[in-house]
């Protein structure tokens, strides 16, 4: 299944294929799969996206019963490189703390899949790819995608790989939205679900922050109405500002104070100017400038939009509990005390909905001052909780330890 023909009209170097290597005791497989004109992705907007390619990574080995599959869903600016070195940044995988041999998501035990979401820019089809209708990059002619579309595409890849049941679907933030969508849309395929630091609908405040980011991108003269690839320009400044604004929302005031305070950057006194006098300014500028090297501005627009549109209850008559009625999946919801982007109250709404349908749900609020980003960091209490939940679910599922 690794060598399916490159679909007619598939963009540039995309196609189906894979490479395998060993890293940090993990058997890593980097692969992509193209779906041709006969298998369009039916988007919520009504558009059929075709052809399209999904790029993904797997870790570990699929067991004979195909019962040990863990699907990791990545966040807004995440990608499929959950546990392996990022090819562009050279940094460790974004969830290397969580995924690996002996980690809570144990690659010696589970077959782990992480897919770049539809609309993304790390190999899966997105706005920077060639529109077969025009021969030019999609840009803004790329259809608007939703969290539901992301999950539908993931399911198509799993179908192609011959995988039906997921032992566990796990993700934080937008990844958590996908987990909820999976549990609602494909309950029979999900044995356990771990939505972390997320919400069943994007709040007005979060939509507002996203809009600031999008406007920053669109205000960059190099954005060119989204057609910067055709113009040979790059709205890096706008994207960097979007990232800077968003990054603040991932942290917390106490963590910022602890890390930076009002410390000055490489100087003894303020300069009475607009240089990065303060460490926090320098830090944010660095976050912005490194982000643009690995992320596409239009992908940022599309994926933030998908999060804004997410309101799971809306698909179920406005009652969130109906999204989970009759579910047999077991859930573990995790929130963080200092997360003000996806506060505990948002996560509790998910728990309440699950309680209302008598679902098997656990919930823990982790004490930390690290804000929303805590789900990506070394948080021992989170690991303890998830290890306990995953191990006990694995025992129930009959997966040997």
């Amino acid at each position, binding site marked *: 299944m690794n060598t399916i023909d490159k679909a007619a009209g598939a963009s540039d170097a995309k196609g189906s294929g894979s490479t395998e290597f060993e890293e940090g005791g993990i058997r890593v497989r980097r692969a992509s799969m193209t779906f041709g004109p006969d298998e369009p992705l039916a988007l919520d907007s009504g558009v059929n996206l075709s052809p399209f390619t999904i790029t993904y990574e797997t870790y570990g080995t699929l067991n004979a019963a195909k019962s040990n599959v863990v699907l990791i869903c990545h966040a807004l600016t995440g990608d499929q490189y959950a546990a392996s070195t990022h090819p562009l940044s050279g940094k460790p995988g974004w969830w290397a703390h969580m995924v690996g041999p002996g980690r809570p998501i144990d690659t010696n035990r589970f077959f782990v899949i992480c897919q770049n979401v539809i609309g993304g820019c790390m190999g899966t089809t997105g706005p920077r790819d060639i529109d077969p209708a025009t021969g030019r990059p999609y840009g803004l002619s790329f259809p608007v995608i939703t969290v539901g579309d992301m999950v539908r595409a993931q399911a198509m890849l799993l179908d192609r790989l011959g995988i039906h049941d997921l032992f566990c679907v796990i993700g934080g933030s937008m990844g958590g939205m996908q987990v909820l969508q999976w549990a609602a849309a494909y309950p029979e395929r999900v044995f356990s679900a771990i939505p972390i630091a997320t919400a069943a609908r994007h709040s007005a405040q979060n939509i507002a922050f996203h809009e600031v980011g999008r406007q920053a991108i669109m205000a960059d003269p190099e954005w060119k109405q989204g057609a910067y690839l055709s113009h040979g320009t790059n709205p890096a400044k706008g994207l960097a500002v979007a990232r800077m604004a968003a990054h603040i929302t991932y942290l917390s005031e106490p963590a910022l104070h602890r890390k930076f305070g009002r410390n000055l950057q490489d100087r003894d006194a303020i300069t009475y100017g607009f240089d990065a006098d303060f460490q926090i300014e320098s830090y944010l500028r660095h976050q912005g400038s490194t982000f643009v090297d690995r992320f596409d501005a239009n992908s940022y627009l599309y994926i933030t939009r998908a999060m804004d549109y997410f309101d799971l209850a809306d698909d179920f008559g406005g009652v969130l509990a109906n999204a989970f009625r009759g579910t047999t999946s077991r859930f573990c919801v995790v929130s963080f005390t200092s997360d003000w982007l996806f506060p505990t109250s948002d996560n509790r709404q998910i728990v309440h909905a699950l309680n209302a349908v008598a679902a098997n749900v656990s*919930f823990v609020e982790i004490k930390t001052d690290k804000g929303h980003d805590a789900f990506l960091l070394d948080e021992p209490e989170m690991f303890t*909780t998830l290890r*306990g939940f995953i191990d006990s679910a694995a025992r129930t599922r009959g997966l040997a330890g």
Partner: protein
Amino acid sequence: MSNGYGLDTGRIDLDLIAQMIAPESRVLDVGCGDGDLLALLRSQKDIDGRGVELSQEGVNASVARGLAVVQGDADTDLSNYPDDAFDYVILSQTIQATRNPKAVLREMKRIGRHVIVSFPNFGNWRVRLKLLFTGRMPETRSLGYSWYDTPNIHLCTVLDFASLCDELGLEIEDALIVTRNKARRISNPGIFANLFANDAVFLLSRNT
């Protein structure tokens, strides 16, 4: 809502509660601590159990045992459960630590067909004598805290509890008292039980 009340009758308490529970029923343990009771009921009675626990340590310990436990507070979070969600709702050695025991009991009555409550009896003769003879707030084997640092903010006697049940329309189906680590069934909570019980376990149901 961990069971940190200095009670060493905890194990007896769990066994007594377990005896009251029908097999394969749906159970909510409010203030489930490390999940000891839920684990016991799962293995002995094959129940479908859920827990609510205030402490992160208790939640983690419970989740690690494969129990479905949510971090929450008896005083605020029971309102989120639908009516008749459970066959039994249990409050084990926790009611005296709630801010509003009456409201908690009312919620339990709403979400469970049966309610089980166990609590330390403040009417026990040792408690009475301690206050009488020392003139100080009693610290007993069951209640090993000073008045200023005790989590037990709403202590009651067996008779107090029985009259609250009456007021809330909760019928006493079964009542057990524990004296010196021996349990006995009482037909009606009277002055005798009120004087000698260290702990009491009540099985309640709505009188319709």
